[in-house]
């Protein structure tokens, strides 16, 4: 029999899911990111047009979302490295809370700055 979905309802499994989904979304975003950066070399005017277009609330919200995903993926990755490389003494759930906290802070700071 397969794992029942109810068995996955615990913080570390949700952390895995967030890490996986943020990783996939960021991977999909990267080519687009490089494409826009590439405009700086090939067609600066077009890039300016693009930035003008991007200067609207919905895009800003999407950018904030990306920053949150990036922060989640980064802190989640640091958490995993700590889990793998440090000796264990029962601080594993605190680490998860720290990762989630830093993610929220990054999102709030970004929203405040833009």
């Amino acid at each position, binding site marked *: 029999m397969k*794992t029942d979905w109810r*068995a996955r309802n615990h913080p570390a*499994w949700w952390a895995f899911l967030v890490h996986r989904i943020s990783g996939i979304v960021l991977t999909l975003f990267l080519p687009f990111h490089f494409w826009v950066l590439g405009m700086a070399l090939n067609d600066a005017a077009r890039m300016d047009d693009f930035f003008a277009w991007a200067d609207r609330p919905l895009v800003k919200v999407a950018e904030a979302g990306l920053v949150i995903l990036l922060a989640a993926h980064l802190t989640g990755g640091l958490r995993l490295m700590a889990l793998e*490389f440090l000796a264990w003494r029962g601080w*594993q759930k605190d680490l998860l809370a720290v990762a989630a906290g830093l993610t929220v802070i990054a999102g709030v700071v970004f929203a405040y700055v833009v």
Partner: protein
Amino acid sequence: MSDFLTVRVWRGDEQGGFQTFEVPRLESQTVLDVVSHIQRQLDPTLAYRFACRVGMCGSCAMTVNGKARWTCRTHVAKVAADGNLELAPLAHLPVVRDLVTDMSAFFDKWARARGQFHPTATRKDPFARIRPDSAQRINADAGIECIGCGVCYASCDVVQWRPDYLGPAALNRAWTLVNDERDGAQAERLRAVAGDAGCHACHTHLSCTERCPKHISPTAGIAGLKRAAMKAALRGDL
């Protein structure tokens, strides 16, 4: 507390289905008490396993309301406050019948992970002196109380995704031996657990750690194996 529990119990093999029973609710009732009541009073053909009833033998694990648990030490009040219980065989193991799984694959993997102790001394030699406060002794202690119940194995997604994965219990066992100074099969063991189906396949979901009824963290041991394998590889020993 209502007077009766509604208990859905898995019947048959993998293609089976749930059958519902009404079981009287009692004070301090364990999930195993419920299963025993059904088998003794309602349907003697129900197949299930238990032996010690006190959390030592590791034979009574089942899926209780979706989560793998030892049933002899799981109180109904804790898992079925609303009076509904759903009992199924452990996941990731072939179902023999009803609540009984074939655990051979689970235990074969302990052997594949070199879970046997390989002595380096004979009975004529003096006792090995291991300091209780040495890091290795502390590491081994953290994993040594495993009762082989299979709860971690049934909770691990990686076991489902790649059936050859050695799994948390076998790797936890290997880790206790990696920390046993008296053992003489260290290189073979590290080779056995460092393959694709070994410690590096673990995704650190921590489901095993979350569910182990003995509060062991196989994930911690697996992380230790990853570090040991990495160090051995850097030394060129792997």
